[in-house]
C-alpha cells in the first residue's frame, strides 16, 4: 500500500481538529466568517470521504488503509486506524451529514460565543471519525470519551430551558457505561499479555482470544468470565444506542440540544453504540452474546413498541422525533442479535438510514423552530400552503422514517425483520407492529403541522419558505433517501465482502468455539 492512501484516514480524523485550531486563532473582526469556515471544513471532510470511497477495495474484508504510529508500546497501546466495510458507510454518513447539518441548521440570528460553538462542532466530528476508524481498543475508548465533551458543552451552553439537567444526565449516563467498559478493557489487555506474551490493544488480535463460557445454565453463564466482559461492553453500548430501559437520557438531551446538536446526536452519536456492539461486544464474546441474544432482541422489540407509543403521545415535535429514534434503533438491536447474516447486514443499512431520516426530521423541527419559536405540534397547522417546499421535504423525511418501499428506511428494516423472523418469529411479529405504529405517529405529526386548517395561534401568513442553504441540505438528504431506496446495491456493495466474512465468523464462533 502506498503511503498517500495510508495516511488518508488520519487526515479524515484530524482535518476537523486542524480547522478547529484555525477557528480558535481567528481574530475577533473575522468572526463573522466562522460559519463559512465550518462549512469549508465539512466540505473538505466530505471530499476526503469521497476519496476514501474511491480508494476503498470492496472485494476485501480486511482492514484497509491502516495507519500505524507507536504510541504507548509498553502498554500495548498504539495509534492504529483502519477501515473495513462496516466502518466505511458510517464514516461516509458522518462526512455527508455534517455539511448538510451545517447548511440546514445554523441559527438565523446571532449565536452567543460563536467561536466556541464552531470549535466544538469540529472537535465533535474528529471524535466521531476517530471512534469509527480506530482499530485499537484504547484509541477507540479515547475517542469514544472525547465525543462526550463537545456534546456536553453544546447542550449545556446553547440548549433550552432545562439544558443543565439534560446535559449532566447525558454525561453521567454515558460515563457509567463507559467506565465499566474501561475495566473490561483492562481485563482484555491484561489477558492479552498471557495470551500473546505481550500486552496488546489491537482489536484484530484481541478478537482472536477466547474466554471461557459455560452456557449450560444461567448460573453457570454468570460464573463465566466471558459473560462479565460481554455485559460490561454491552452496557456501555446499549446506553448509547439507547436501549430500553437506558433510554431516558435521550429525550431530554434531544429536546434541550440546539438543532445542530440534535442532528449530530441522532444521525451519528447513537450509531456509535450500535457500531460498538457490532465491532466489539458481539464478535469478541460471541458465545455470551448468543446466550443473551433473546434478552437483547426482547429489549429491542420493547424499545420499538414503547418508543412508538411514547412518540404517539407527544405534543412536543422534537420529543416525538426523539422517541421515534428509540423505536427505530430497536430494529438495529433486533437485527444484530438475531445472528442471521441478512439481518446483520440490514442492521448496518438501518444505521445509515436512521441517520439520514432522523437527521432530516430534526432539521425540519429546526426549520420550524427558527421561524415560529415553538415546537408544540398544536401550535402548527395548515402550513403546507404557505411553505410548500418545506412540506415536500418534510413528506420525504416522513416517508423515509416510516420505511415506505422505495425509500431508504425500507432497505434497512425489511432485511432485519426477514432475518430475525427465522429465529424469533413471535418477537418479530410484535416488532412488525412497530412499522404500523411508526406510520401512525409520523403521519400524525405531518398532518398536525402541514395539513388541516391554518393555525390561529401564530401569524403564519408571512412565514418564509426554505432558503437556498436549507434547500441544498434537504436535496442532499433526499438524494440519499431515494438513492438508497431504489439502488441499495450501488451504495452498499463495498460492504458486502466484509459483512459476509463478519457474519460467517460471528455465527460460526458463537455456535462452536
Amino acid at each position, binding site marked *: 500500500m502506498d503511503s498517500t492512501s495510508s495516511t488518508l484516514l488520519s487526515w479524515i480524523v484530524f482535518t476537523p481538529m486542524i480547522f478547529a485550531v484555525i477557528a480558535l486563532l481567528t481574530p475577533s473582526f473575522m468572526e463573522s466568517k466562522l460559519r463559512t469556515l465550518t462549512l469549508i471544513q465539512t466540505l473538505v471532510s466530505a471530499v476526503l470521504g469521497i476519496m476514501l470511497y474511491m480508494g476503498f477495495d470492496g472485494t476485501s474484508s480486511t482492514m484497509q488503509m491502516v495507519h500505524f504510529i507507536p504510541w504507548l508500546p509498553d502498554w500495548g497501546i498504539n495509534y492504529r486506524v483502519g477501515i473495513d466495510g462496516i466502518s466505511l458507510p458510517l464514516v461516509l454518513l458522518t462526512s455527508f451529514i455534517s455539511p448538510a447539518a451545517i447548511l440546514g441548521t445554523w441559527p438565523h440570528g446571532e449565536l452567543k460565543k460563536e467561536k466556541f460553538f464552531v470549535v466544538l462542532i469540529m472537535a465533535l466530528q474528529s471524535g466521531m471519525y476517530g471512534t469509527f476508524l480506530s482499530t485499537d481498543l484504547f484509541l477507540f475508548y479515547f475517542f469514544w470519551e472525547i465525543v462526550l465533551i463537545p456534546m456536553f458543552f453544546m447542550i449545556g451552553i446553547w440548549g433550552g430551558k432545562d439544558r443543565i439537567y439534560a446535559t449532566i444526565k447525558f*454525561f*453521567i449516563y454515558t460515563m*457509567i457505561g463507559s467506565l465499566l467498559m474501561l475495566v473490561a478493557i*483492562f481485563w482484555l489487555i491484561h489477558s492479552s*499479555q498471557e495470551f500473546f506474551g505481550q500486552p496488546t490493544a489491537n482489536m484484530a488480535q484481541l478478537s482472536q482470544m477466547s474466554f471461557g463460557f459455560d452456557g449450560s445454565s444461567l448460573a453457570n453463564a454468570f460464573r463465566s468470565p466471558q459473560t462479565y466482559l460481554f455485559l460490561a461492553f454491552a452496557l456501555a453500548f446499549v446506553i448509547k444506542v439507547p436501549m430500553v430501559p437506558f433510554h431516558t437520557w435521550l429525550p431530554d438531551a434531544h429536546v434541550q440540544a440546539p438543532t445542530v446538536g440534535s442532528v449530530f446526536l441522532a444521525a451519528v452519536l447513537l450509531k456509535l453504540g450500535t457500531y460498538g456492539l457490532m465491532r466489539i461486544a458481539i464478535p469478541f464474546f460471541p458465545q455470551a452474546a448468543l446466550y443473551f441474544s433473546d434478552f437483547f432482541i426482547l429489549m429491542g422489540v420493547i424499545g420499538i413498541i414503547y418508543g412508538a407509543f411514547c412518540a404517539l403521545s407527544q405534543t412536543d415535535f422534537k420529543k416525538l422525533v426523539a422517541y421515534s429514534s428509540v423505536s427505530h434503533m430497536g430494529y438495529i438491536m433486533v437485527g444484530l442479535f438475531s445472528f442471521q447474516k441478512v439481518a446483520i447486514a440490514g442492521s448496518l443499512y438501518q444505521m445509515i438510514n436512521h441517520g439520514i431520516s432522523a437527521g432530516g426530521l430534526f432539521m425540519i423541527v429546526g426549520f420550524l423552530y427558527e421561524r415560529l419559536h415553538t415546537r408544540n405540534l398544536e401550535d402548527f397547522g395548515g402550513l403546507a400552503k404557505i411553505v410548500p417546499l418545506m412540506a415536500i421535504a418534510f413528506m420525504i423525511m416522513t416517508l423515509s422514517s416510516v420505511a415506505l418501499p422505495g425509500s431508504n428506511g425500507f432497505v434497512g428494516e425489511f432485511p432485519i425483520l426477514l432475518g430475525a423472523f427465522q429465529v424469533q418469529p413471535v418477537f418479530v411479529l410484535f416488532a412488525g407492529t412497530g412499522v404500523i405504529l411508526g406510520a401512525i405517529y409520523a403521519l400524525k405529526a405531518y398532518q398536525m403541522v402541514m395539513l388541516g386548517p391554518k393555525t390561529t395561534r401564530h401569524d403564519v401568513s408571512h412565514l418564509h419558505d426554505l432558503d437556498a442553504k436549507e434547500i441544498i441540505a434537504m436535496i442532499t438528504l433526499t438524494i440519499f433517501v431515494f438513492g438508497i431506496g431504489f439502488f441499495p446495491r450501488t451504495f452498499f456493495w463495498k460492504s458486502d465482502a466484509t459483512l459476509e466474512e463478519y457474519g460467517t465468523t460471528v455465527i460460526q464462533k458463537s455456535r462452536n468455539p
Partner: protein
Amino acid sequence: MNIMQMFPLASLTSEQLMCLLPLFTISAGGLFSLLVGTNKSNGHGYAFIVSFAAVLYALIEGCSNLFVSDISLLQNTLVLNPFTRSLNLMIMCFALIAVVLTYGQDKKEGLLAEIYGLILFSCAGMMLMVSTSHLLFMFISLEIMSLAIYVMVAMRRSSRFSSEAGLKYFILGGLASALFLYGSALIFGSTGSFELSTIAHNVQMGQPSIIFYIGLGLVTVAMLFKVGAFPFHGWLPDVYQGAATNVTGYMGAGVKFTAFMAFAKISQHLVFNESVEGLHWFHSFLWFVAAASMIYGNVVAISQTEIKRMLAYSTIAHTGYLLLGLIVVRTGVEDTRSLIIYLFFYALSNLGVFALISLFEDKNQKDLNLEQMAGLGIKHPILGALFTIFLFSMAGIPLTSGFIGKYGLFSSAVSRGEVPLVVIAVLTSVVSVYYYLRVIVYLFMKESTGEMATLHRLKGPTVAAVISALATLQFGVFPKAVIHFVKMFAR
C-alpha cells in the same frame, strides 16, 4: 575523635557530594532566601528570586546527576539511587511550581517573605523522606517537612480560619508523628532494626511477636493520616480551606506524593510480605480504607458548595484510588510505577487548579463559593478553559493526563486481580464526574446571580496554571515520556 568524624561532610567523596548537591542547594537556598527576605523594600521579590534560582539550579543538578552510580550514606540510611533521585526530581518540580505560584499570591494574602524559605525546607524534607528506608530517618524527614508545612498553613495572619487550620493540623499532625515514632520504636523492639529490609528479613526468620503487629499498625495509621485516608481525614477539609491557596496546592501535590512514596516503601516491605502470617489483616484493612475513602470522599464532595472544600473531599477520594494502587505493590519498585505516574499527574492538575482559585479569591477569603463562579468561564474564556482542563484531568477524562494516570493505576490493579475494588473505584468516579462537571456547569452554563468573583491579575499563579495546563495536555496525549522516565528508574 579525629577531624573526619567531627566534620562528616569532609569525608565525602566528590561523587557523593555531587549527588547531595541538589539537597544542599535547596537547603542553602532556603536559608539564604530567609535572609534576603528581611529586606524592607523588596524582600518578597528577592526571596522569590533566590528560592526560584535555588530550586531551578537544584533541578538541573539533579538531572545531570541522574546516571551516576548509587550512593549510600550514614550506614545505608540515605540511599541515592536512580529511583530515589528521580523521585527527588519530581518533588523539585512541584516545589518549583509552588514557588512560582506563591509569587504575587504572597503580597495579596499578606504572607511573610519567609514562605519561600519554608517551601524549600519542606521540599528538602520531602526529598530526604523518599530517599530513605530507615524508619527513624523517615521520622526526622517527615518532621522537617511537616513543621514547615504547619507554619505555611497558619501564615495568613489576619485570617482566623488560617490560624484554626494551622493549629488543627499541628495538633493532629503531631499526634500522627507521635504514633509513627512509637510504632517505629515497637517495631525496633521486636525486630531489632529500623531498616525496612532488615526488619522484613528478621520478621521472615521467626514469627514476629504481637508487639511488631502493634507497631506496624501504629505506623500504618500515622501514614494513613498523612495521606488523608477516610477515617483519618478529619483535618483535611479545614486545612485546605484555611491555608492560603498556594499552600493548599503545594500540600496536595508535595505532601501527598511524599507520604505515598514512603507509605509504599513501608507497606511493600512490611505489610505485603506474603511469607509472614497475620499480615493479610493489614491487607484487608487497607482494602476497606481504600473503598471507604473512595465512597466517602466522592459522596460528601457532591454536597459541597465551596470549591476548596469540594476539592478537599475529592482528594480523599483520590487517596482511595491511590491506596488501590498501593495495595497492589508487592515485590519491588516496578510495582510503584503506576502509583508514581498517577501521583505526578494528579499533583500537576492539583497545583494548577489551586493556582486558578488563588486568582479569583479575595484576601482572607475562606473559600470560593460556586455561586460566585457562575459565568466566570464566559467572562474569562482562557482561564475557564484552564479550569476545565484541570477538572477533566481530576475526573480522569481523556485528552488530559489524569486519564492516563487513572488508566495505568486501574489496569495494574486489574492485572493483580483487584477487580471488585476497581469496580468500586470506577463507579465512585462516576460520582466524581458529577461534582467536577458541576463546577464547569457553573463556569460556563449558569448566569451570574449575585456578585461574581473578581479576577486578581497575579503573575505567579497565572504562569503556574498555564505551565500545569500545558503539561496536563501534553502528557495526556503523549504520555510516553513520563512512562518511559518512570520505567527507566523504577526497577
